[in-house]
Every structure is written in structure tokens, then in C-alpha cells.
């Protein structure tokens, strides 16, 4: 038996002892400071192990080469013998003389010891454990004497001789910081104590002998240790606690300051970014959020590099106002709207006609997301508050949820450098659906599409073809990604710092086919198309973040964080040719291109008709946040945040002169400059006071001020000077527009919180004002109430053996979404009609305005529980919620008797309800030293319904995005196919043989009803090798598949021309131009979102490269997709703004693989 096994026997806890031993060994190996648990002689078990390890290293040899006395080896098999006998046996086996006094050493004490081949040191420590006797080696003699050490304050209060006491110290594994408040006890007794601020607790009058000390603290994995308690004096035992999976002890940044998570009545998702980026392929904040926040729906705008995603927390609630959550970075607001007009390219969004979408209209290109301009490497934590029950005190627009981002802060100590680099490739996986072409010839000998209903056309063949699947014609190629990040942190006790810098360079997968490049050269005198036409999708991003934290004396501290990002995105109209190519047939034999238009094939010279227009977006995002905290009194803490977020955008849309376009060959240039400035000032004060009956009061109050200014200036010219791409020399100014808005908001709040033991009830009220409210609006008030009860900490809780932690919680809160800047105003439009012989200025009413317009109000009730079970191997969080949006602002038609037809007024009407469940399960199925397997699974279900539309409001919206009381917001509606019959028995269904319903019917929701995500991580070889996978599942999204089912592209349906098609398929084609009934599909999707394999180099190997830690990882994203969707990928939407979601041939998310290296110095 080895010493370690002997120690394990004594400890009675095999896995824990293994872990301790391993850490100890690792610490010695890396010469790093040993963890607290290993540095102290906490028990006979670990002490023995430590001694054994030291002996094995050969540290105790004499000058003659013989083993030093204490490293000589013995084996003991003693049961219930006196200590004196045990000492005699050790001395006998080792040949060592032990010197001690029978008055000091309790030789009559009964001990048992079973060891095989352990050192004398181990054997002596084991039999002397709990006696207060230590082993000293002096001049070759082994002396047993009373231990002398500096007493802690707790020991000072210990029992005198004749009564044993145990001093327990508890620290956190990760931080080595003491954990105050930990409940310490002795198993089988009623002895309990609570640790002090320094992490110590004293257990008095502990019966001597073998005892088990237990420690429990909320949010940490409970622990226990077996110790031998002496008859008198002291013994010490130390615990290092690991945070549990439910992590209720975590500190949460709330609107009123930092709180422990278990004190809150609402659910909060907290992401520790480093732990995610260590194993997952993360390139943006959206990547961090996707799949990790139950209740968060992420819908991608497209797969173009840098394109934003639509984020919806617990469903969509607003018809006209934004549904984007607000974002707080280091205490201040930043501009975060990803769905309003400014999220498009400033240049093109106001110059309709430049970029065209699949249906022929102008489209607004999405600009990169402001949220994704934050460097994920610079972030320490992200906290997601999902609705009003959590976000009441955050003020304007908090009803949509809050994303609280905290950047990294430095730790005192020498500079610690981190570096990472990755390089990857991306491509479109799989095949696009093939079109079915039943081909014949027309009188000119050209191919024509023989539809089933064209009885004069005789098909020669039926061909399946898809240009996007043919490399010769496809615009889809391979993209590249490069990322480099460097960080340093450190500092002193007075000042710490953390600096992070990163660089991203991404090339999208879009590329110009060679045949089109050649055609371009032919048309342009042999000149090759410029790079941007050949590889239009580009994104580069530089980012730097710094955070300084300073102690200003004993009672104050301050921090200053700064983030600067420069980003440039480039795209072109080639992106929109995906849809065009989907409907293109190529006679590969002779290279002739045919474009489908309805049921017609028309010959064309252009494989892709437009790749000549380029859109660029240059953005600078700067955020500066300062925070000062001052604690003038022990019971009073005050703090202030101030900061500014500035985004400046220079956008451009260019159609160079001389391009072959029917509209204009002289060139068009549209330049837009837009920007936003968000200013924030927060003041807070928190006072604490004890109350009678064991209650404790924490009273927080504060005020917030924020101002968001936006502006955009756009100029458009035509007739560019030859060879130029600037406004200079242009023929004509076609456009000059300007817009601006200022929104000022302020609010104040009061939040009393009462606690009693582990029961917390928190109330609060916030009052708000805003420049966007109507003049006749009362000051809206938003109350909140939260209850949290750590029921497992109560003495009467009966299931302590089953639940490590069990908390029940409930919260109610209200929050608002503010009206738009000019929503309440009566606005006018100017015209120049001909009147009285000339053109005169005229001023019409554009918008009636509403002097009573007030914010949308959301109220939310949520409740649930958190439970850690089975020794922290299973953690479950379950939350149910009911979120109501009252006073939803909608465009209400005004009767024409007021100001004519088509006049609308924004009014607070309508009620929208979101109800749902969120489940988060974390497991550690295997937790052994060489191998661990941990899994996180979350499931969310949301049901959205417009419950009221208000009096006088009829259902409105397009069929693909309709608002109807009793149905989900922005639901899909269509005229149904009621039936069909082959009346003329010709085996072909024509339009007249299909009965189409007159009334729209509900087809499905535009958001998924169910979402589930699973992340599983496997760690091999004590963490040296890690593998992880992430799956995502969605169900209930009804997608409009315009890409393959639009009137111009019915070639994807067999019902168009395949004689073997069913009548149902033929009927769908027959009415395709009248209803999207056949285009709507309720989708289930299972996606293998991520795969990662990483190798963490052993310290010795890492040191060879001059690093402290080194890892290399192969990571894949969007690795697999299994869906019943007939199109390419249902999780894209065509619109960057507004609430419409549909697949119109938008570039889906590509598959990507990257190799990354992380190093720490």
C-alpha cells in the first residue's frame, strides 16, 4: 500500500484525496505557490500525502547516503493500541530513537493505524494527529514535543486544557479568499459555527477522537473532512471550497449595485467569458450569448462577416418600438439597437433603389452590430436580465431585457500576459436544392420551360439543376478568418490594470465566378474586375480595452474603463445574386444561361446581373466609463457612474461609372455619415441597518440620467467623373437628407431589501421621465418585488442529504419601452405645388401626433427554483414567466373625417403576452481525476400572443408578418388552399381547379416556440485534452421560403412541370402568385453548432516555449444541420430592421473551422 492509499483510507474520501494530491503535485511541479489546502497541515490524510510526496522527491537523505530518520519506511497494522505502543512499534521498525516525555505525549491514548511502506514522518503524524504533539528532528534525534504556533483570535477563545477545540478555516478554491458566513459543523453533533470575515470558525468542546467536520455555504459544493480530535487543546482544519454549479454565491451587478445572486428573486444568466472562450470557438459577443441564455432567441441576419443578429429575450413584445435588449458596459449605457433604422447602412438605407432585394425592391443593408464591436477577449462577465421582473430599475427600454457587460479587471501581482491567435476557413456546407426544369424548345430553338399547364409545349427532358452547386458558376467559395488578441493585467494593491487588444480580419465566402470575371474583362478592355468585386465580403476590426482600478484610501475606490473599436465592413450586390442564381438554368453543353421568370425561361448573357455596387461601413465605437465608490460610514456606500459611448459611422454605396446596368452607366455614389452619442450618469447610495427580530435592511436609492443623440447625413450624386469614386466632379446631386434625434431620460428609484437569515424580500419603485413622452403624460412608475428563500439552509429542511442547495424564488416587476423621439409630435411635410401662377410653399400635416403618448409598459411575473443535487453533480434551474406588454404603441388608423385617408396615429393600445418556461440543467456525469464529463442543457419555451388590439383597430400587417388579436405577434398568415379536383380529368391541376379560401388563416409563428441547447465538455488526461460539442434545437418557427417558392422560382416545386407530381404539389404551384400558403413551413432544426478539441500543454512543455500555459485548439462552427426545411437554412432573415423575418435567398451562416493557440506568460 502506498502512502497515498493509506492517506485515502484515513480520509475515507477517495476522489477528494486524489484531487488534493494531484493539485499538490502539480503545484510542486510548476513551482507555483501551493493552494491553501496543500500548504497547511489540514489533516492527517493530506499531511501524510504531502510528506510522502516530499520523501519521494528524495529531499531527506543524510550525508552518508543512508535515509534520513524520518524518511525511513515502516508498515503498521495497529488496532486500538495505546499511543505509547504505537510509538514503540515505529521506533522498532525504523531503528530510530524517539525522544519524548510521557507527561507531554498522551501515551495512553488509544489509536489505530494501518499503513504499508510509509515514511516514519507519515506514521508519526498519523498516530500523533490531534494530540498537539509535533515531530522535530534535532541533530539526528527525533523529538516529540508540544507544538508551538501563533494563535489566531479564534484559538485565543479556545477551550483550556481538558476541552478540545477545532479551528476551521474556509477559503475559495479559485480566489483563495476567505469565505465568511460558512456554516461549520461536526457530524453527529449539534456543534455549529459560522466563519468570520477572515474565514475562521471555532468549534468548541468537540469530542475527542475521530470526527467529521462539515462545511456548507450557499453556492459552494459542501465538503467534509475526517479529523482526529485530541483530548485537549486545539486542532486546525482547513477547507477550500469549490463553487457549485448553480453558482448562487456569485456576485451580480444590479442597477443598485452588486448583490449576491441568491438574494435576487429573479433568474439571471451569468456568463464567465474566459471559461467559455477556453473551449469554444467565440468570435463575437453574439457567439457568447447564442445558446447559453435560456429564453434568448438569436436570429441571424445573414452569414456575411459582421452582420448583426436579432436578439429577443423571452419573445417579442413591441409592434413598433425596438425589441432589442439594452446593453450596459461597466455601468453605463451604450448604443445597442440592432433593429432600428440606424442599424442599416446609412448611405443606402435612405437612397432607395441602390441595392435590390430578391423581390425587386430596394433593401437596406445591415451594418455591423454595435454589440459585436465589443471584443469578447476583453470581457470578464456577461449578465443577462431577461425581462421587467429583473430589469425594473434600469429605466428606459429595460422591458426588453438587459445585457450587463463587465470588462476584465486586473489582479494585484506581476504582469500577466495572455495571447491568442486563430486562423480559420469557412464555406457553405451541403448542397442547395435543385430546380426541376422540364425543357422543350420554342420556335426559335431556344429552351423553354414546359409547365404542366402548357399543353402546347412538349418537353424533351426533365433536368435537375442548381448553379450554386456548380463551382464554375457558383458565387460561393471559401472565406478566411484571422484573429489575434493580446492582453496584460497586473498591478499593486493600490492600482490594478487590465489591457486587451485584438485584431480581426474576415473574408466572406462570396466570390465572383471566373466566367463573370472574364466577361467583365471582355466588356472593359481586358481590365480585371477590382478586388472588391471578386471578393466583396470583408470585415476588419481593431479593438482595444483598458480598465484601471484604484484604491483611494481605505474607504473609496475608483475605476476607469475605455474601449475603442475601429471596424470596416464591405459588401456588394453580388450577395443578392444567390437568389438569382437559384433560379438560373445553365445549358452546360453550350454555356447558355437561362433565367426563370414565372413559368418562362429567358436567355441571358449575364450569369450574375449585378455585382457592381459596393457598400462599405466604417465605424468607430468609443466607450469611456468611470466609477467611483465611497464608503463614508460602515453602513453607507455611495457610488457614481459616468460615461459616454460614441459611435461614428461613415458609410458609402458606390456604383462606379461605366458599369453595365440598365439604369445608369454614369455612376452613382451615396455617402452617409451617421453617429450616436449616449451619455450616462448614475448616482447610487446604499445603506444597511439591522432590524429587530433578526431582520436586516438594505436601502438603495439612486438616480439615472441618460441621453441618446443620433444623427445621419446622406448625400447622393450621379454622373461620377470618369475614374473617380468621390463626390467631386459629379454631375448632379440627387439626394441630400438629414435626420437627427435627441432622447433624454431620467429616473430615480428606491429599493428597500429585507433579509432574514436566508430569506430575502426586495421591493422597489422607479419613476421615469423622458422627452419622448406626450405633454399630457403622468410620470410613469415602475414597481418591483422579489422574494428569494434558501430553503435548504433552514434547519427544518428535510432533504439535506438529497439537495446540496435548494432555493425558491419569485419576482414581479414592471418596466417600460419609451416612445420614439418624435412620436408624440405633430409633424409637417413641405411641398411645392403650383398655385396662383407659380410654385408656392405649402405645409401639410404629415403626422397628427399624440399629446397623450406614454411608454409601453411591461409587467412580468416569474418564479422558479435552483437546486444542486447529488454532491453537486446535478444542478437544475427552472423558471416560469408571464410577461405582459400593456400600452403597446401601435399605428392606429384615424377615421378619415379627421384628416382624410390613410392617417395613422401612434396610440398606446394593445396587449401582448409572452409566457414560457426556462430550464437549465448542469451535470457532471463523470468527475474523476483523469477524466471529466460535464454537460449544460437548457430548454426554453415561449408562447407569444397579441391578446388585445384596442378598440377600432383591425388586424394589420402583411400576410407574412401580421398582427391579429389572439395570435402570435408578427404571425404568418395565408389564404388557404381549400381543395382541388381534376375536373377535366386531364391529370393536371390548373388554377380553375383549385379552391382558394377568401379569409386568411394563421399558419404559424415567426419565432420558434421551443429552443434547446446542449453543451458537453469532455476532459481527458487531467485536463490536458478537452473536447466539447454544442447542439442547438429549434422548433415552431414558421419560415417564409421565398427563395425557393417565390412566384419567379416555382421551379423548385415538382408541381410546376413534373408529370409525376401530386395534385397537391400542382395545386400549390397554381396559386403560388396569390398565396404563400405553399411557401410556409413550420421548421424543426437540430444544429451541431460547435465542435472543439483542445490540447493543453503540460507545464514542462509550455515552459519550453517560454510560456506558463499553452493550449492549441481546433474548433468548428455550424458543423451540422438537420432540418425539415426545404430551403437552405431557415435561421436567416432578410431584414435587418423591423420585425419581419423571412428567407429570401439570404446568405446563410457558413460552416467554419479554425485553429487557435492560447498562451499565458
Amino acid at each position, binding site marked *: 500500500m502506498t502512502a497515498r492509499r493509506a492517506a485515502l483510507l484515513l480520509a475515507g474520501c477517495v476522489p477528494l484525496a486524489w484531487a488534493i494530491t494531484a493539485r499538490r503535485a502539480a503545484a510542486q511541479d510548476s513551482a507555483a505557490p501551493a493552494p491553501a489546502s496543500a500548504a497547511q497541515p489540514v489533516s492527517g490524510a493530506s499531511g501524510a500525502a504531502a510528506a510522502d510526496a516530499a520523501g519521494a522527491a528524495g529531499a531527506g537523505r543524510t550525508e552518508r547516503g543512508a535515509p534520513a530518520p524520518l524518511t525511513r519506511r515502516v508498515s503498521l497494522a495497529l488496532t486500538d493500541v495505546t499511543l505509547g505502543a504505537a510509538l514503540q512499534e515505529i521506533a522498532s521498525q525504523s531503528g530510530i530513537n524517539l525522544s519524548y516525555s510521557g507527561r507531554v505525549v498522551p501515551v495512553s491514548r488509544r489509536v489505530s493505524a494501518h499503513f504499508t511502506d510509509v515514511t516514519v514522518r507519515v506514521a508519526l503524524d498519523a498516530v500523533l494527529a490531534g494530540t498537539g504533539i509535533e515531530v522535530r528532528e534535532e541533530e539526528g534525534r527525533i523529538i516529540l514535543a508540544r507544538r508551538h504556533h501563533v494563535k489566531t483570535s479564534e484559538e485565543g477563545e479556545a477551550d483550556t486544557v481538558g476541552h478540545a477545540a477545532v479551528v476551521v478555516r474556509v477559503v475559495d478554491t479559485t480566489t483563495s479568499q476567505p469565505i465568511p458566513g460558512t456554516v461549520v459543523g461536526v457530524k453527529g453533533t449539534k456543534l455549529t459555527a459560522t466563519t468570520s470575515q477572515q474565514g475562521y470558525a471555532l468549534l468548541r468542546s468537540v469530542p475527542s477522537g475521530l470526527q467529521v467536520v462539515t462545511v456548507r455555504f450557499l453556492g459552494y459544493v459542501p465538503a467534509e473532512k475526517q479529523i482526529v480530535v485530541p483530548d485537549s487543546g486545539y486542532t486546525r482544519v482547513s477547507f477550500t471550497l469549490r463553487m457549485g454549479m448553480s453558482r448562487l454565491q456569485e456576485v451580480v451587478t444590479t442597477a443598485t449595485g452588486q448583490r449576491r445572486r441568491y438574494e435576487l428573486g429573479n433568474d439571471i444568466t451569468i456568463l464567465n467569458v474566459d471559461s467559455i472562450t477556453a473551449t469554444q470557438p467565440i468570435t463575437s459577443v453574439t457567439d457568447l450569448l447564442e445558446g447559453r441564455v435560456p429564453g434568448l432567441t438569436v436570429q441571424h441576419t445573414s452569414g456575411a462577416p459582421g452582420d448583426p443578429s436579432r436578439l429577443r429575450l423571452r419573445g417579442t413584445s413591441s409592434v413598433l418600438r425596438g425589441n432589442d435588449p439594452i446593453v450596459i458596459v461597466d455601468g453605463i449605457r451604450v448604443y445597442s439597437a440592432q433593429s432600428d433604422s440606424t442599424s442599416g447602412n446609412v448611405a443606402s438605407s435612405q437612397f432607395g433603389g441602390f441595392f435590390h432585394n430578391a423581390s425587386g425592391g430596394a433593401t437596406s443593408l445591415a451594418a455591423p452590430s454595435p454589440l459585436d464591436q465589443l471584443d469578447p477577449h476583453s470581457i470578464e462577465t456577461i449578465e443577462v436580465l431577461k425581462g421587467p421582473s429583473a430589469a425594473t430599475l434600469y429605466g428606459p427600454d429595460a422591458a426588453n431585457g438587459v445585457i450587463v457587460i463587465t470588462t476584465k479587471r486586473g489582479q494585484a501581482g506581476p504582469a500577466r500576459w495572455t495571447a491568442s491567435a486563430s486562423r480559420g476557413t469557412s464555406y457553405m456546407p451541403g448542397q442547395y436544392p435543385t430546380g426541376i426544369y422540364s425543357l422543350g424548345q420554342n420556335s426559335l430553338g431556344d429552351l423553354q420551360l414546359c409547365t404542366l399547364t402548357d399543353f402546347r409545349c412538349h418537353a424533351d427532358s426533365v433536368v435537375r439543376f442548381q448553379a450554386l452547386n456548380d463551382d464554375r458558376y457558383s458565387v460561393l467559395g471559401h472565406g478566411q478568418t484571422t484573429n489575434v488578441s493580446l492582453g496584460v493585467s497586473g498591478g499593486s494593491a493600490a492600482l490594478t490594470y487590465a489591457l486587451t487588444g485584438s485584431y480581426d480580419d474576415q473574408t466572406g465566402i462570396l466570390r465572383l465566378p471566373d466566367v463573370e470575371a472574364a466577361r467583365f474583362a471582355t466588356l472593359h478592355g481586358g481590365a480585371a474586375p477590382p478586388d472588391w468585386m471578386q471578393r466583396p465580403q470583408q470585415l476588419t476590426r481593431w479593438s482595444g480595452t483598458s480598465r484601471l482600478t484604484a484604491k483611494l484610501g481605505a474607504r473609496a475606490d475608483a475605476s476607469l474603463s475605455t474601449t475603442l473599436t475601429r471596424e470596416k465592413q464591405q459588401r456588394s450586390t453580388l450577395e443578392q445574386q444567390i437568389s438569382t442564381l437559384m433560379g438560373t438554368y445553365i445549358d452546360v453543353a453550350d454555356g447558355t444561361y437561362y433565367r426563370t421568370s414565372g413559368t418562362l425561361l429567358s436567355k441571358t448573357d449575364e450569369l450574375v446581373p449585378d455585382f457592381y455596387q459596393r457598400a462599405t461601413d466604417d465605424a468607430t465605437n468609443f466607450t469611456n466609463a468611470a466609477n467611483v465608490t465611497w464608503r463614508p460610514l460602515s453602513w453607507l456606500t455611495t457610488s457614481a457612474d459616468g460615461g459616454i459611448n460614441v459611435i461614428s459611422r461613415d458609410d458609402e454605396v458606390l456604383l462606379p461609372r461605366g458599369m453595365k446596368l440598365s439604369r445608369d452607366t454614369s455612376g452613382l455614389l451615396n455617402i452617409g455619415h451617421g453617429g450616436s452619442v449616449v451619455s450616462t450618469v448614475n448616482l447610487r447610495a446604499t445603506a444597511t441597518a439591522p432590524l429587530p427580530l433578526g431582520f436586516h435592511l438594505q436601502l438603495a436609492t439612486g438616480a439615472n440620467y441618460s441621453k441618446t443623440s443620433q444623427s445621419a447625413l446622406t448625400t447622393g450624386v450621379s454622373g461620377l467623373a470618369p475614374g473617380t469614386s468621390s463626390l467631386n466632379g459629379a454631375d448632379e446631386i440627387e439626394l441630400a437628407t438629414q435626420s437627427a434625434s435627441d432622447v433624454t431620460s*431620467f429616473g430615480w428609484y428606491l429599493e428597500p431589501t429585507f433579509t432574514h437569515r436566508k430569506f430575502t424580500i426586495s421591493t422597489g419603485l422607479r419613476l421615469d421621465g423622458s422627452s419622448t413622452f406626450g405633454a*399630457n403624460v403622468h410620470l410613469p412608475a415602475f414597481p418591483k418585488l422579489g422574494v428569494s428563500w434558501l430553503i435548504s439552509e433552514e434547519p427544518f429542511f428535510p432533504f439535506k442529504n438529497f439537495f446540496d442547495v435548494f432555493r425558491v424564488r419569485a419576482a414581479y416587476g414592471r418596466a417600460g419601452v419609451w416612445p420614439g423621439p418624435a412620436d408624440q409630435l405633430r409633424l409637417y411635410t413641405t411641398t411645392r405645388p403650383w*398655385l396662383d401662377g407659380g410654385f408656392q*410653399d405649402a405645409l401639410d400635416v404629415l403626422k397628427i401626433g399624440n399629446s397623450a403618448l406614454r411608454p409601453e409598459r411591461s409587467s412580468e411575473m416569474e418564479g422558479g427554483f435552483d437546486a444542486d443535487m447529488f454532491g453537486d453533480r446535478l444542478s437544475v434551474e427552472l423558471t416560469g414567466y408571464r410577461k405582459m406588454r400593456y400600452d403597446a404603441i401601435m399605428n392606429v388608423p384615424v*377615421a378619415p373625417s379627421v384628416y*382624410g385617408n390613410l392617417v395613422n396615429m401612434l396610440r398606446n393600445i394593445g396587449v401582448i403576452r409572452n409566457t414560457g418556461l426556462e430550464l437549465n440543467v448542469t451535470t457532471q456525469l463523470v468527475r474523476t481525476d483523469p477524466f471529466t464529463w460535464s454537460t449544460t442543457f437548457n430548454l426554453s419555451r415561449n408562447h407569444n400572443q397579441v391578446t388585445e388590439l384596442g378598440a377600432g383597430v383591425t388586424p394589420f400587417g402583411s400576410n407574412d408578418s401580421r398582427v391579429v388579436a389572439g395570435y402570435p405577434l408578427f404571425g404568418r398568415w395565408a389564404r388557404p388552399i381549400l381543395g382541388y379536383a381534376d375536373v377535366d380529368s386531364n391529370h393536371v391541376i390548373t388554377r380553375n381547379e383549385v379552391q382558394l379560401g377568401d379569409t386568411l388563416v394563421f399558419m404559424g409563428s415567426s419565432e420558434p416556440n421551443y429552443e434547446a441547447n446542449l453543451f458537453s465538455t469532455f476532459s481527458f488526461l487531467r485536463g490536458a485534452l478537452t473536447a466539447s460539442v454544442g447542439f442547438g434545437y429549434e422548433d415552431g418557427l414558421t419560415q417564409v421560403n421565398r427563395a425557393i417558392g417565390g412566384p419567379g422560382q416555382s421551379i423548385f416545386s415538382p408541381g410546376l412541370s413534373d408529370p409525376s407530381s401530386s395534385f397537391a404539389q400542382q395545386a400549390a404551384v397554381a396559386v403560388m402568385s396569390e398565396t404563400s400558403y405553399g411557401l410556409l413551413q413550420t421548421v424543426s432544426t437540430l444544429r451541431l453548432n460547435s465542435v472543439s478539441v483542445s490540447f493543453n500543454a503540460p507545464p514542462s512543455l509550455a515552459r519550453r516555449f517560454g510560456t506558463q500555459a499553452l493550449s492549441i485548439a481546433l474548433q468548428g462552427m455550424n458543423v451540422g444541420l438537420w432540418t425539415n426545411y426545404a430551403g437552405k437554412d431557415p435561421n436567416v432573415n432578410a431584414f435587418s430592421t423591423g420585425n419581419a423575418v423571412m428567407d429570401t435567398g439570404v446568405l446563410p451562416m457558413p460552416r467554419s473551422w479554425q485553429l487557435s493557440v492560447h498562451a499565458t506568460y
Partner: protein
Amino acid sequence: MPMTSLSSIALPSHRRTRAGTRGARFGLAVFLAAATLSGCSPEKLAGNDQLPPNVPDPGQTATPAGAIAAYHSAIVQLRTAFGGHDNSFVPVTGLLTDELRSGDVSQPNFTTDPMLVDSRFMPEDPGIGDDSTTPFPVWTVYGLLQKARGQARQARGALLAYAPDSSRALVGALNAIEGYADVLLADLFCSGVPLSTLDFGGDFTYQPGSSTEEVYQHAIAFFDSALAVSADSERVMNLARVGKGRALLALGRYAEAAQAVADVPDDFRYTFDFSATAAPNAINGDVNRMFAYHDFGLSTGPGMATTMVDTEGVNGLSYIGSGDPRTAWVSGAIFHGLALVRPASYPTNGSGSLVLASGVEARLIQAEAALQAGGAEWLAMLNALRTDGTFDTRPDSADSTKTDTLWHAGTGGVAGLAPLADPGSPDARVSLLFQERAYWLFLTGHRQGDLRRLIRDYGRDPERVYPTGTYPGAFDTYGGDVTAPIPGTERVSNPLFTGCRSRGA
């Protein structure tokens, strides 16, 4: 911005509770502290630069120039509602009466909204959903006329608030415009037109439907107001006089009507002038153009084509076959085999002047009052119109080169208008009088009101008045409507409106 403005945002209501007020004061104090810390003054906080692209700051329009611009808009709105749109009052009432026929009737199996109007088939939409049954021309002209009312109120408020020193006649003109909008609504639509108001300085106020009589009385009140403030503009005074006379005539108050127009000179004409030149920034380029630009022009297409018609539906007058110079016509395009006929005085390039009120109309009102009073004076007055060249003078237009669409006696047509003889019977006299009105006021938006008056005031059977019998289009027969319904959109949104009180005359 003064603190009172700030208070209007933060502390808006005296009705707030005491606790709320205390909270507001505390909040205001905290807010001001925060604002001070942030380096912002309250003036900046309440800044009003909150506008979408290309929309002027409302505050900057609160000027005399802005008020004048609003006044211009009011005139343009009524001009558009009267004859500046394919579905404005003149062409729509022309379709409903015997003046015009939908050109779409020549298309087999083809039904258009103008045909619904033309064939007098306009069911009232119940207003429980999308307005699916109101014919588009009816929906459009209703909205245009109501917008003219709303803009007149808006402009009047702006003039009184921001240009108090401007000519009072501008206010008078706006009153007359609103009065005319009322008259036209009452002429065309069923009893029960709601006269809701766009409130200057406020939002709006819905009103229940007013009876046809109430609407005319409402109009008379506006004309009286116009007469009271427009002494410095004889043109506005005459417009108001004719408008008042027209409204009184519609109420059967003939003597008062004659008295109202007594001072209107023979040569008075108030025209709406249209230009062939598109407005620089009009949403569509046709905002300045007369309805004839589309209805008789080259762009004629389904739903737009109209034609003059002879003796439409049995009861129609012979506008073509009579050879009357007042309804002179020319052949137009061939549309699906149907030769379209257009009035010779209506240009098809969009320019021209459409007469809203005239001395001729004043004399006709007087003639009708005389007929009601008995004696032979009425015939003399009609014959004076037909033979006395003094009625032809310069057009009442800023652009003297333009000619209006009213036939001008003395310009060559006198020879073609022989004196009328007394037909002898009272009924025939009424018919003759209304025939003269129909020819004199051809396609100027008077025929619909006249036909309703024949039913309402002269007791004639609608089927003796309106086109009836076989309809050449897809409907086969004419319907029975003599008024247009209020569109269903009104019923959907206006909680006080419960539908037409009566669809009768």
C-alpha cells in the same frame, strides 16, 4: 427652454397625487443634480431636435411663413378634392350622374370600381374589418374632401396663432374652403357625414354623423364667417356668397339663396387652376393636374377611363347629341372598341382652370328662386344667360392665358343658344331649369346635388332622375343608389359614427 417646458415633461399634471408630486420634486432635484454633473443644462435636456429625415422642425413652422404655407396647402387640398384627382369630386359625381360613363364598360367580364359608381351600385361597408366594399373612387373622394376640411382648420389655427396681422381674408378664404368641403360632402354622400375636427394645438375630436341638412347648415355657418371677415377681398366674398347660396338652395331656402348671391357679379368666376408642370417634390407628379389628365388623357387605363355619354340610362341628358356648345365634345382614344368622348374644354395635359363658383351659378340660383316664387322672371333670367355676352370676361385666374372649363357666352356660342320658351307645366319648367343648370355647369360638380334636389325638394322619383335601366357593363342593370356611402374605414375608427342615417336623397 424655460423651466416651464421642462415641467411639462416631468411634471405634467395638476391631477397627480400629493405623493406623486413629492416624488416628482425629489426626482427633479436628483435629475438636475445629475444633469449638472453631466455638464448639461436643462435647456439642452428638453431639446426638440427629434425628427425623421426631411421633416421640418415643427417649432420652425410656427411662423407667419409657416402659416401662409399651411394656407396654401388648404387651397391645394380642396383643389385636389374637387378636380385634381382621378377620383375627385367632379369625375366621381360625373360617373354617378349622367355626365360621364366608365370607359371600362367595354371590357367584357371586367368589373372596376368606377363602374360600381357609374352603375349606382355602392353598398355601405359595415366597417367591421378592412374596408372591402366601398368603391375606391368613393373612398378616395371622401378622404380628399375630409382632408381639405382638416387642412383648412389647421391653416386657420396657424394663421390666427402665428400670423395675426395677415389679411383677415385669408381666414375668410379658409372658412369658405371648409364650407365648400362641407357642401361637396353633403352633395355626394349619404345623410350622416361625420364632421370630425383636427384640432390645432391638440389632437383631434371625433364627431358623430351629421344629417345632410346639418352639413349644409354647417357649411352656411362657415360661409357666414367668411363673409364676416373677408371684406378686403371681393373674390373671397363672392366665393362665400355663391357657396352660401348653393348650400341654401340645397336646403330649399330659395329666397335666401337668391339673396345670398345677389351681389355676385355676372363675370365672377372662382377657379382652381391646374398646371401641366409637375410639382418639384410631389409624391406623385400629378399633384397640380386636373383629373382630365388621366381620365381623358393618353394614360387612360382600366379604372381610369371615362367618357362623356349621351342620354345615359334613359334619364340622362343629351350632352353629345344635342350639339349644345356648352357641352362641346371631341372624340378621344378608342378603348377596347369604345370611342371615348371628352369635353372639348377639358385639356388632357393636366392644365386648365376648373370653375368652383361663378356669376353664372349665381344667376341660375336666382332663376330657380324666381321659379319658386312664380312668374316669368325665371325664364328671362335663363335667357339672359344664353344671350347676354356680358357674362364672358377674363378668367378669374392669376394666369390670364388660361381658359376655364365653363363655357363662356359671347365667345362664339351665343348664336347656338336660342332663347328658351316656357314649357308650360310646372314640372316641365323645373326640368328645363335643371337642364339649363346641367349644361351651364356641365362637369363642374353640380349635377349630383341637383339630381338629389330633384328628388328631395321637387319630389321626383329617383328612377326618373338618375340613369336607370340596362347598364352596359358587367352589372347588366343600374343599381338604386343616389348617394355614396361613407367608407367603412370611418366606421372602423370613429366610435361615434354608426353608419349612414339614410341612403336616400
